[in-house]
């Protein structure tokens, strides 16, 4: 096996894994605070893809040319509106369920994801959509004299990896080093006690949803620019993959979500690349199951040792 | 007399923390033995090791079995031990170890007659008081899936006996009016008593009580002391007790074991312990000791 193939698969896996990681972070944050699997998170990501395309088209409609300006504007608008979507979803579908059993929000999340999918389908049509190529360009490392033998990473791909790492580091810092983060964790562990200590838990939960949605927006924009195409259904598969990544990394742990994403991405890439792409998901899920059997709380999750 | 419970050389480490170090003590059948010591001394940890929730780092714990055989039941073996090479030529031991490795655990400790309560109350909050007690009789009522599904006469008889037994214990602890309330909504003091009743429903020989009098006022504590004495006298249940209420401990216990920093610093009769300077310094404090007998 040639080195450049292995190297290329490594890059493929890393990029794919970073996109999983970016979205998994949102899952993990929401889980980390209300212990709820937010199945609508994938749909929030899907909406951000649409918003990206819409704002890009809007920019060209107004004749904006400069790529960095356009990208910044689009990023700002997309993140803002996606976060607003995240916030509204929380207000409508989860807040009323604060005092119900743990699974009720799960069901309302499934309802929300049906709503969002079909809302987009009805208003934007069912067809595939796309964005024109922006920020083209690649780095190539030749591995031998033959001109087909190289390892490459596009500018956008590297941007994805860098953004994923940076945002993960930022969020980790917030959660572990700031009072806000402490309030988040307290809210998760014992909401009533947090309340008694003066934490406005409702607000904290909203803030977390907004942050999670903002992460999804960043992911949505980068992924859309990178792959160039999307439809109203992309949230579903991505949601499941990202959720898997979050659990693999130890749900509730932000660096874990990233790590889980990368591991999942690498596993998929290598299996598809060197074994068989039919069974790559089977492999990924089997890996997950086996791994969890031996390490029941994921890579970086806090082990559930209970003092009796 | 042969002791009911023999703890020998028990040590427990959590990462860097040594919670127990070489703890030795015995519990005589029919006695009330109290385990006392400052906060964090390792009392609850001893309970956890005895009842199988923690796997001791080293040491042995034996419970006298019903036929009073010399070695008794090795409680640690019930939890499942790592396999050893020597097992290879002892197929019986091997099979036993494999069995315990797969199916072993604290539940087996309970089944040989050790029941406990928890320092942080652990009830089935969403079940009623009566259901809490019926769950505890799981192993006694179990009369087969089919007979239950068909609601056979035998099954109904078992079920009735279980309810009767539960009601009796509820009456004993004065909880009968609460029988159909949810356990989680009971006041703290009731929950403590309910937990004791539940443990008793498993028909233990040794009952381990972790701070049963916490949250009771002196009057209620007195009543509880009386109940505990009755348990021993009428039902021949041996009691191992953790308690910070020295009045109660000194009143009812036959034998005391004092722990500090995971080590036994004294054992003996209440009168001896009350005079022991080390215990006074480490635990009772001089002024409190005077009021101990309140």
């Amino acid at each position: 096996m040639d080195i450049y193939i292995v190297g290329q698969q490594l890059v493929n896996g890393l990029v794919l894994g970073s996109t999983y990681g970016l979205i998994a972070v949102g899952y993990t944050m929401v889980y980390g605070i209300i212990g709820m699997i937010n199945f609508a998170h994938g749909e929030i990501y899907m909406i951000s893809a649409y918003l990206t395309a819409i704002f890009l088209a809007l920019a060209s409609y107004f004749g904006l040319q400069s790529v960095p300006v356009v990208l910044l504007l689009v990023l700002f608008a997309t993140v803002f509106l996606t976060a607003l979507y995240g916030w509204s979803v929380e207000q409508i579908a989860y807040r009323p369920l604060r005092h119900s059993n743990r699974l009720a929000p799960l069901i309302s999340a499934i309802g929300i994801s049906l709503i969002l999918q079909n809302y987009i389908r009805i208003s934007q049509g069912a067809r595939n959509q796309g964005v024109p190529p922006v920020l083209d360009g690649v780095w190539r490392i030749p591995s031998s004299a033959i001109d087909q033998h190289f390892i490459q990473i596009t500018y956008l791909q590297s941007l994805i990896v860098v953004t994923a790492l940076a945002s993960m580091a930022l969020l980790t810092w917030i959660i572990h080093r700031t009072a806000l983060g402490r309030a988040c964790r307290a809210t998760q562990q014992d909401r009533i006690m947090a309340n008694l200590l003066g934490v406005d838990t409702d607000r904290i939960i909203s803030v977390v949803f907004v942050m999670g949605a903002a992460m999804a927006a960043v992911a949505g924009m980068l992924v859309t620019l990178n792959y160039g195409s999307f439809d109203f259904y992309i949230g579903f598969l991505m949601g499941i993959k990202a959720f898997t990544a979050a659990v693999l990394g130890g749900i509730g742990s932000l660096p874990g979500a990233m790590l889980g994403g990368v591991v999942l991405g690498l596993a998929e890439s290598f299996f598809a690349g060197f074994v068989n792409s039919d069974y790559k998901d089977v492999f990924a899920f089997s890996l997950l199951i086996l791994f969890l059997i031996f390490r029941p709380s994921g890579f970086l999750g806090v082990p559930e040792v209970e003092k009796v | 007399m042969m002791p009911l419970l023999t703890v020998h050389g028990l040590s427990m480490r959590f990462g860097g923390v040594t919670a127990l170090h070489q703890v030795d003590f015995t519990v005589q059948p029919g006695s009330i033995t109290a385990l006392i010591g400052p906060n964090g001394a390792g009392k609850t940890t001893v309970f956890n090791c005895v009842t199988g929730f923690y796997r001791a780092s080293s040491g042995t714990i034996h419970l006298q079995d019903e036929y009073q055989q010399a070695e008794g039941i090795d409680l640690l073996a019930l939890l499942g031990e790592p396999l050893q090479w020597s097992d290879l030529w002892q197929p019986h031991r091997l099979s036993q170890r494999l069995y315990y490795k797969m199916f072993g655990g604290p539940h087996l400790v309970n089944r040989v007659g050790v029941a406990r309560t928890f320092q942080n109350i652990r009830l089935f909050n969403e079940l009623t008081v009566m259901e809490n007690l019926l769950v505890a009789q799981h192993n006694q009522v179990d009369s087969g899936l089919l007979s239950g599904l068909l609601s056979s006469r035998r099954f109904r008889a078992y079920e009735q006996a279980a309810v009767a037994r539960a009601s009796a214990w509820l009456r004993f602890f004065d909880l009968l009016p609460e029988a159909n309330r949810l356990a989680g909504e009971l006041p703290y003091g009731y929950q403590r008593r309910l937990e004791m009743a539940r443990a008793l429903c498993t028909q233990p020989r040794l009952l381990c009580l972790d701070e049963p009098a916490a949250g009771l006022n002196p009057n209620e504590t007195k009543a509880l002391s009386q109940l505990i004495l009755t348990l021993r006298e009428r039902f021949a249940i041996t009691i191992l007790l953790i308690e910070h209420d020295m009045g109660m401990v000194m009143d009812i216990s036959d034998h005391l074991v004092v722990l500090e920093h995971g080590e036994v610093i004294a054992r003996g009769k209440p009168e001896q312990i009350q005079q022991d300077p080390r215990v006074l310094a480490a635990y009772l404090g001089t002024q409190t000791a005077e009021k101990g007998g309140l």
Partner: protein
Amino acid sequence: MSSRVSRALRVAVVALLLFAPITGLVLSGYQLSIHWQRPLWLAAAVLVGYFTLSWLMQHLGWLDRFAASRSAVQPTATIGLSGPRPVWIGAAILFALLLPFVLGKYAVSVAILALIYLLLGLGLNIVVGLAGLLDLGFVAFYAVGAYTYALGYHYFHLSFWLALPLGALLAALFGMILGFPVLRLHGDYLAIVTLGFGEIIRLVLNNWVSVTGGPNGVSVPFPTLLGLEFNRKAKQGGVPIHEFFAVEYSSDHRSLFLYFLLLIVVALLILMVIRLKRMPIGRAWEALRENEVACRSLGIHHVTVKLSAFGLGAMVGGVGGVFFAALQGFVNPTSFTFFESAYILAIVVLGGMGSTTGVIGAALLLTVLPELLRDFSDYRVLSVGIAMVLMMVWRPRGLRQRRRPFFVIPAQDLPKAPVAVSQGVAEQ
């Protein structure tokens, strides 16, 4: 008053922001077509809707009730005799029996589907509602059941009546196989592992073309009744039922047969679940859900108890699968997606976890409702989603709370002290 106006206005502004780009700017290729009226209409609708709703709440006293149900206190479960009154049960049975003759064939086909979902809901209710194990891959067992019949027929000419127990057993076996290693996992780790397992089963069914037919699926014959077939002409070597009874052939016979068969199975299952809940094993499931540590301290082996829940739930799922295959006459992996698991879970949660009556209600609601909504065509799935959210918000604890059994304690003929125990101990 004015605060309500300003709140409503704020809501409308947010709505406008949300709707403007998505509904107002429609992508076509890399261009946009602009529909500026759409977001305005939507925002106006939200404004009006919000206004009326808040007015209604205030004036009809809804507000108080809402506020009460939203308070930080966890309301206590009401305790009472479990189960609805016999009158209702009788009425339900009568309705079920008369349904095919009153509502017609289409209603029967919907009812069959509803019964299958009810079956699945009851199965999952054991796992999630009673034992508290979050299973997101329940569809795997459903698939096992369906494929047992399909492949069993394909390769070994297995009949429906054999496939039924076999599918159930096989599904239970799969449940145990999955269960044993993963029961060490807690809460949501269990959820993802079951989800993964469900996906693995589906993917293997889809990819292993040489055995399962892959996406092309396998066709399944309709069950026979004592060797009598429900076809126009005998295909499986039996006698067509209409010839046997010398009546005209009608495809209605099939659905009637399946309907009543399912009705019997479901009725038996409901009885079983009701019994189970009052049996030691059922109580152990619930106890385990509440507190695992306490359970172990009481001599309950958590692994076997969990496994029994898993296995039993899976078994019911398997039965559902066999019926599904028989109904469809064709199975392929697209029927066993994660969404299906989620939908069954929705039935359990909406029903009110652990409540049998609730699950029955929710299963009927969640299968009949989407059918009723077919008239909305384009907006159907959207409406299903909205209905799911509304129902959860309206009944956050499910349609019905699980009621606790009430024990009547005859005060007089009780011994003063626990005699039974004292004897038991004295013997030792």
